[in-house]
C-alpha cells in the first residue's frame, strides 16, 4: 500500500488502463484445459493468467490427515517465478501460504464434504502472469475447475477485488493500484446466497467507503458469474459434440493402439 502515489491513478475519470471506477478488466475462462487433472480451468483477467487444477476426490496422503466423515479440501496457491516483473523465487513463501489458506477456507464453505468421506480434494492455483488481484482471479478459476471435476458444491463462488485509489472506491485492482492505492480488499462471494466466504482488507477506509466498496463488489457478481457459466457451458458443448460424433479422443486412442498392436491379434475393443 503506497498511500500517497506520485503517479495519479485516475486521470479525467479514467484509470491507468482506461477503465472507469466500476469497470472490470476483461475476463476469459476456459474449462477442462488439462488432460491429467480431474478438473481444470485457464483464466485470463486483464493481464493476469491463471491456471487452476483440481485432483479429487482422491486418497489422502499423508494418511493421518484423513477425515473419516468427509473429504478434506486442500489448496496450493503459487506464483510462477516468471509471473512478475521481478524474478520470484520458486516455491512457497509467507504470502502464498496465507493466500493458500484463505482460498482453501473459502472452498471449504462450498464443497459438500460429506459426499466423499476419507478423500482429499486438492486445488492447485498457479499464477502464470500476475497483474493485480491474483488471489481472486485464482479463486474464480478454481471454482470452475472444481465444477469441471464434478465436485459437488453448494454454489460456484466468484472472486472480486475492490479498493480505494486517489480517494475513490473502485473495483478490480490492477497491479499499480494494488501497489500505490490507498486500500485493497479481495472478496469471494457465493452468488446464490450472497454469503462472503473470503474477505481481507488492507489500507485506510472510512465506514462509508467500506460499505460503498462492499456494495460495488456485490454489484459485479453477476458479470463474473456469467463468465464461469459460459466456460462450463462451452466445455459441455465440446464434450457432448465429440461423444455424438463418435470421434472422441477415446476412439482415436484405440485406433492408435490397434496400429501399435498390429502384429498381435487385436480384437475389437469395446468402448
Amino acid at each position, binding site marked *: 500500500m503506497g498511500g500517497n502515489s506520485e503517479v495519479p491513478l485516475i486521470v479525467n475519470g479514467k484509470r491507468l488502463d482506461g477503465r472507469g471506477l466500476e469497470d472490470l478488466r476483461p475476463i476469459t475462462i476456459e474449462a477442462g484445459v488439462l488432460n491429467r487433472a480431474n478438473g481444470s480451468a485457464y483464466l485470463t483477467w486483464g493481464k493476469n493468467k491463471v491456471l487452476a487444477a483440481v485432483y479429487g476426490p482422491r486418497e489422502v496422503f499423508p494418511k493421518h490427515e484423513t477425515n473419516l466423515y468427509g473429504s478434506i479440501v486442500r489448496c496450493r496457491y503459487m506464483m510462477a517465478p516468471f509471473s512478475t516483473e521481478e524474478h520470484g523465487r520458486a516455491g512457497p513463501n509467507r504470502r502464498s501460504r496465507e493466500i493458500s*489458506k484463505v482460498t482453501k477456507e473459502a472452498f471449504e464453505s462450498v464443497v459438500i464434504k460429506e459426499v466423499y468421506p476419507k478423500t482429499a480434494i486438492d486445488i492447485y492455483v498457479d499464477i502464470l502472469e500476475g497483474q493485480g488481484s491474483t488471489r481472486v482471479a485464482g479463486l474464480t478459476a478454481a471454482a470452475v475447475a472444481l465444477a469441471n471435476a464434478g465436485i459437488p458444491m453448494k454454489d460456484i463462488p466468484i472472486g472480486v477485488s475492490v479498493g480505494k485509489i486517489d480517494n475513490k472506491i473502485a473495483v478490480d485492482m490492477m497491479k499499480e493500484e494494488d501497489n500505490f492505492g490507498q486500500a485493497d480488499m479481495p472478496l469471494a462471494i457465493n452468488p446464490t446466497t450472497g454469503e*462472503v466466504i473470503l*474477505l481481507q482488507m488492507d489500507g*485506510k477506509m*472510512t*465506514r462509508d467507503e467500506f460499505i460503498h466498496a*462492499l456494495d460495488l463488489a456485490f454489484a459485479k457478481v453477476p458479470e463474473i458469474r456469467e463468465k464461469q457459466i459460459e466456460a462450463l457451458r462451452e466445455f459441455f458443448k465440446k464434450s457432448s459434440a465429440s461423444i455424438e460424433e463418435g470421434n472422441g479422443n477415446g476412439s482415436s486412442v484405440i485406433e492408435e493402439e490397434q496400429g501399435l498392436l498390429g502384429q498381435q491379434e487385436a480384437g475389437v475393443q469395446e468402448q
Partner: protein
Amino acid sequence: MVMVIDELKKEAVKDMLKLGKRTDGRSFDQYREISIKTNVISAAEGSADVTIGKSRVMAGVKLEVVEPFSDRPTEGTLTVNADLLPTAHETFEEGPPSEESIELARVVDRGIRAAEAVDLKSLFIEEGKVWGVFVDIYTLDHDGNLLDAAALAATAALQSMKVPKYENEKIIREEMTPKKLLNIPTQCTFVKIGKDIILDPTYAEEIVADARITYCVGDGMLYAIQKAGPGAFSKDEIISLLDKSFEQRKYLLSLLEKI
C-alpha cells in the same frame, strides 16, 4: 490431534449458546480480563506481556541497523513474525512456521502497517542505513483469540519502544530515546457459531466456530480485515461487526494508553 476434553467443551459451548449464554458467563460482546505489562525484557528495545483470560502472548521489539527498501530509501522497516510455540498448546508442533502462525503474523502486521502507527520516516539514519524494527510475537498459552492478544502485545511493545543511539557505526544501547506510536490501532476478533457471533473466543469457542473475522481499526478508520475458517458471513454481519469493533476501541485504547 483431537483432545477429548476439548471435544466435550465444544458441546458445552453449543448447549450454552442455545440459551443465549457463554460458558464463562460473558456477554457476546465482552472481552475476558485483559492485562498488559510492558518493559518486561530489558534486552529488547520494547516488550510486552499480555493476557486475555487464560491466553498469554509476549512480544519483543528489537532494532537493528539495516538497509532500507529500494522504493522507500528514507524510511525505517517493520517486520512482524510470530511463533506459535509448542509450549502454548498440544496442537502446536515444532517445525517450520504453520499457515496459522504465518497468518497471525501477517494479520497483526497489516493492521499496524496500514495504520502507519510506527513513525518509520523518523527512523532514517543516513544514506543506505535505517532502523529496522523487528517485532517478534511469542505465544505462550493458548485459550483462544491469540490474534487479539498478539495485536495488543505487539502494539504495547511498540508503544513502549526506545531507539538506541547510533554513532560512528555503532549501536549504543545505553543511550535510548523513547519513540511512541503515531497512532494506536486496535484489533477485535469475532467467531461465528451457527447464527451466533461472539467476541474474543476461548479455545473451545474457536474450535466449534464455523468462521472467524478480525478487524483492525483506528479513529473512524478501518485498517485491516481478515476472515478465516470454513464458514461465511453476510454483508450485514460484516458491517455490524465493523461497528462493534469501533465500539470496543474505546475500551482497548484505555488499556493501551495506560502504558
